[in-house]
């Protein structure tokens, strides 16, 4: 099993609901560790999920992209073997990459090794923290099934994010990746991320009513 999140870049509108709900859940929710010393006053503090906004081109030919970026839970996670204490590890049963805070010495080597810049150093506790794929939620059997998914997936207003097992060929995420040419970031660095994105498609051209009438008239 390899749990993953698939993000449809056509549907992401950059609202940051996933970013905020991640912080909310992992800070003030019932579960999970506190990712910041003072999370609501440190605007530049820790975010386990960052929505990157990038603009390309020159006016008027400009494109904008929103990219929610959190831990990729890589198959060959480079952060795991470099960790001297074994604090960074990848779970055998579901493929989630986690950090054992008790064993972390805060050397930050895993942050250098991660190609994606998704690990964050907590200077107050002296340990490195990151997205846990909301492991506390997805394994909590006291929750109703619809709540056993990461906070970012549940809060997305456009349903851009889908959660599931990438290695189950019948799962929704496996179908999405296979049918929509799901891709990963920086594949050339060899980490084999589990997190995939669905590529953006061209926006359909705008057709005015007169053109429609003209085409229909030509056909009749």
């Amino acid at each position: 099993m390899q749990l993953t999140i698939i993000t449809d870049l056509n549907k992401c509108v950059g609202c940051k609901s996933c970013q905020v709900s991640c912080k909310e859940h992992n800070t003030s929710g019932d579960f999970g560790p506190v990712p910041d010393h003072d999370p609501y006053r440190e605007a530049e503090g820790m975010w386990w999920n960052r929505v990157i906004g990038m603009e390309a081109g020159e006016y008027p030919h400009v494109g904008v992209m929103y990219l929610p970026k959190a831990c990729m839970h890589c198959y060959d996670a480079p952060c795991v073997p470099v960790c001297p204490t074994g604090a960074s590890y990848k779970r055998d049963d579901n493929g989630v990459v986690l950090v054992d805070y008790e064993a972390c010495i805060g050397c930050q080597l895993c942050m250098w090794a991660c190609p994606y810049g998704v690990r964050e150093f907590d200077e107050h506790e002296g340990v490195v923290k990151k997205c846990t794929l909301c492991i506390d939620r997805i394994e909590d059997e006291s929750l109703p099934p619809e709540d056993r998914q990461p906070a970012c997936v549940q809060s997305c207003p456009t349903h851009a994010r889908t959660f599931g097992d990438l290695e189950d060929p019948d799962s929704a995420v496996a179908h999405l990746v296979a049918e929509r040419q799901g891709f990963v970031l920086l594949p050339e660095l060899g980490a084999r991320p589990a997190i995939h994105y669905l590529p953006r498609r061209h926006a359909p051209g705008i057709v005015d009513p007169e053109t429609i009438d003209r085409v229909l008239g030509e056909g009749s």
Partner: protein
Amino acid sequence: MRPTWPLLALTLLQGVSWGVMAVVAAALVGGWPVSTGTVQAWEWLAWGTGALGGSASVFHMHRLAAARYVLRRLRSSWLSREALSTGGYMAVLSVAVALRVLWPQASGLWEAATLLAAGLGAVAVYITAMLYATIPAMRSWHSPLTVVVFFAAALLSGGAGAGAVGALLGGPGLGGLPGLDAAFALVFGALVSLQIRAFRVAAAGVLAATGTGLAGRPYRLQDAGGSRPPYRTQTQIWPVLPAAVRTSGYAAVLVLAVVGPCLAAAQGTTGLVWGAGSAWLGVALSRWMFFADATHSSRVWFADQPKTPSPVRREPGRPYGRRREDSV
């Protein structure tokens, strides 16, 4: 990435320590005409710098409570191996220093411990360098050149230190080989020049198009997921050095680490001392640039990217190559 003083101190002082021990080993094996007192002073210098460097590494750990687990991943982690190799080197070096002080008549045993320490020191420098060279995400460091530069820096700083101490004690510097300091400096300068080029190539290869898939340039970062890029919580990235800072930084490295020791080598005892100071400053600045000027792959999402004209575009009547007016 953000340079931190524990990393600078650890890597620099470990290099100085082993560099001095390499001189000691060369003197023993090569039969250099140096006094016992000089060799003893060299060994104390190696031990002192090594101990200081090892102490500095403690400050790089932010949770000492977990330090007891640091050897768990010897099979895969270069940091685990670094802790073991540096600790082993310092242990054997301490034995050698203690033998010389407490049991001076056991010269055979001391010589064996000294040579063993020099060998272990080389292993420790290699492992420290490999820690940086084997990180694919740190594009600037992921090269065998990193390992070679670490060894060259160690030989230059250690050789210069040993030469200065030898001259101060009335000896002929590095065993009557006054040109050795200058040779180390010239080799180091050549390698730093190669490294500057490698760092520029690495920076040019980290493209926003790779991270976003957007067509066309220039790219402008609208939002890094916070009010500004996460330089505070993510130490693998750092603001890009302005071109003027980078140029003047590397120029100062070459002046201090290459020109200074070469000019000072011919000036006798005082010159050797000044040359060592210059070399140490130059190597320290080069190590600061090694961290500060490094490009991490995640920079694609945290920085603007300017429009750059094609350097190979061919226009009618014009040969291949970048036009002067195209430069950005």
